[in-house]
């Protein structure tokens, strides 16, 4: 493949990492959701580009799913949810963004460090994509654990999953990529619905412990 294709793929994958870092940086839910929409959009572009340069047409489907489902449908749904739950104005301050950014940077470094020796066999594109994908995955995980809010938890998870799709797309001629992304979309849809149905309120995870003991039939001490 010649330089331009490679550079574009490289650029798209890299920008996903950047956007992941941006996700870490957000402290308002609205902003978080919007940035995530951008994240998914970039993913759609990256996958589409992969489809183009690999002549793997089924990847267009994946790209389409990413575009329609993750870049449009989910963000809209989330907007409605948070408005319904009345948490759209909340500020999230967990430990401070600066710490998260540092950790994020460290994770990116780790991802590259792990990936460099690998893939002597695999071609350069796959290697790059893989390193970036791993970075995105780790950053998503970091986002998940650095926020209290159920919604941002989901967003973190979805960005992580974006990284997976990126990796899948980067893997040349990987079969079942479409099926996998479909399966994942179902999963995410369920999560979102879960939030919606179960009325999982803000900061669900820190309900009063004594109350929880009562119905868990457990003594703490």
């Amino acid at each position, binding site marked *: 493949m010649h330089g331009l294709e490679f550079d574009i793929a490289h650029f798209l994958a890299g920008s996903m990492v950047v956007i992941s870092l941006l996700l870490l940086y957000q402290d308002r839910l609205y902003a978080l959701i919007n940035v995530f929409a951008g994240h998914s959009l970039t993913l759609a572009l990256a996958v589409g580009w992969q489809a183009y340069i690999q002549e793997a047409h089924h990847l267009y489907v994946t790209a389409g799913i990413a575009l329609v489902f993750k870049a449009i449908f989910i963000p809209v749904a989330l907007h409605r949810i948070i408005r319904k739950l009345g948490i759209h104005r909340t500020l999230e301050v967990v430990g401070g963004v600066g710490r998260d950014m540092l950790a994020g940077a460290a994770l990116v470094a*780790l991802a590259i*460090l*792990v990936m460099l020796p690998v893939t002597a066999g695999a071609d350069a594109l796959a290697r790059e994509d893989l390193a970036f994908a791993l970075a995105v995955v*780790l950053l998503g*995980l970091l986002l*998940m654990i650095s926020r209290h809010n159920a919604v941002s938890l989901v967003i973190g998870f979805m960005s992580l999953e974006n990284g997976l799709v990126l990796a899948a797309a980067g893997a040349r001629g990987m079969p079942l990529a479409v099926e996998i992304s479909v399966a994942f979309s179902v999963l995410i849809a369920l999560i979102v619905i879960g939030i919606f149905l179960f009325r999982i309120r803000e900061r669900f*995870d820190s309900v009063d412990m004594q109350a929880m003991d009562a119905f868990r039939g*457990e003594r*703490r001490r």
Partner: protein
Amino acid sequence: MPLPLLLSLSMALLTVGIYAIATARHASCSRRVYSVALAISGVALILVLTHLLTASAPATLTLPLSLPWLGAHFRLDALSAFFLIVVNLGGAVASLFALGYGQHERAPERVLPFFPAFLAGMNLVLLADDAFTFLFAWEFMSLTSWALVMAHHQESANARAGYLYLVMACFGTLTLLLAFGMMAGPNGGYDFAAIRAGEMTPGLAAVVLILALLGAGSKAGLVPLHVWLPLAHPAAPSHVSALMSGVMTKVAVYGFIRIVFDLLGEPMAWWWGGLVLALGGITAVLGVLYALMQHDLKRLLAYHTVENIGIIFIGLGLALAFQANHMYASAALALTAALFHILNHSLFKSLLFLGTGAVLTATGERDMERLGGLIHPMPWTALAFLMGAAAISALPPLNGFVSEWLTFQAILLTPELPQWLLKFLAPAVGALLALSAALAAACFVKAFGITFLGRPRSPAATQAQETDRYSLVAMFTLAALCLLAGILPGLVVDSLAPVVGLLNGGAQLATQHTQPWLTLAPIVDAKSAYNGLLVLLFMALSGTAAALLIHRFASSASRRGPAWDCGFPDASPATQYTAGSFAQPIRRVFGSIVFQARERVTMPPPGDGRPARLEVQLRDPVWDYGYAPITMAVIAASTRANHLQYLTIRRYLSLVFGALVVLLLGMALWR
């Protein structure tokens, strides 16, 4: 061909157990089960007796069970035959006793299914010839006896005892498992033949020895692993207590002998013997001291089991020390002493527990402070118990003395040992042995005197009745055996010879029954001898002669009157000596050191009607410094760990994240 027969007998016992599950609630079931158990044990007893006395060759058998590529190996040799005699004798007598005793059982459905299974388990342990079968049967034995301990689970004390017992049993099994794993090697040569053939480095052999000590010792009640024993043995119904104390502990000793003497072969270092010897001495003395402090009759007996296990291990330790220095003649003596004591203890300890059972049914009391004067309502039980007490106190001409005498003789040979430590250790252990013998006598004066003599201390004791015929027959069988083994020790020693030879590289004692007047003279060059028969004859002759002469020539008149008591005739039985007050001098002499015994007397001023109180407080050092800290640590740790049950999802995610990052870092740095 006795081996298949024995196996099928064990199977029969198991089926009896299953049958009992179905019909336990019927009144007649108890009688059926026990009579069948009696019959089976009797047949098995005859089989193994013939096998041992005819000194026939070991028989082996392999069944396509257990580990598929291994199969279940069984073997009947002199050693297992001897222990099978102990087991089945105990089983038979216990069943006989239970024919009467079992009628009073409150919860037969919790006893009848497990009793035969327990017997079967012990038989199988002795027959097993590979590690898997051995441990399988071993654990099965523990499990069934645990179920029997839990028979009266409503008392919380019993539940606690059962729990402790089961945990300790599991500990023992795991240690034995490790020992066998070490001997079998990474390729899993689990059958004993392969283990015997295999070679071990001294270091590994030492590890195995220590593991065997832990495993078998925890089951036999070796200090400091004895804590469960005095709780668990009394909790069970009395005939089961007799089995557990008199027989199961012996099976544990069998495990030790099988592993250390048979499977490991020659002891690799002299300190093995020293270790076992020291443990035995400590166990003996501590056991009897514990026993002296008890008021519960069954618990007192249980602690005496600990003491006797100590004596047995003294013999074994001596044997190891001698073997390590290739002094096989002396080792033969020590082994004979140990095996003889195993037999003896199974006899009189069963007898004593059965007697306690009789007392229990007659009065419903185990606490000596509420008994007394039972010799009047139940003279025969008293006589049997007295014989048991005299035997366990090592009084000639009964059997207990013979084995302790042999042990002493073995200790007297230790100066020949080259190692200095052993030179110092042996006489010290001898002193401990003598001390424990004397204290045992004191303890059984207390046990018999307070329970059967004096005046009844509670209405229950006043209304006691003599126990039923089955129980009496059972007890007197054992008593008679105690006497026989005491006056004809030579015959027993001779029948032990093949066992000793098996464990001692062929060396065994000189045949005894050829000695003049059936004297027991184990060591030929040293002319130390003992002749129980003549001693008995002497005593009988002189005693009867004195009696006849006096009644013939001097007065034979007698009349009843109030007790004189130095002119203070007292109405109330409460003024008698109690178990506590009897033990007081010894408590002050020994207890204050070992148990930090504290006494507090609260004496109301004159004119004050309140009774004076004496409070005695004892602390168990083993529990305080050994077990309590461990329990504390576990509880504290689980309290800390418990916080992990209440984290938030975010925290849990962080755990996963942390694990991932750590592993990735490891990957990155690993190269």
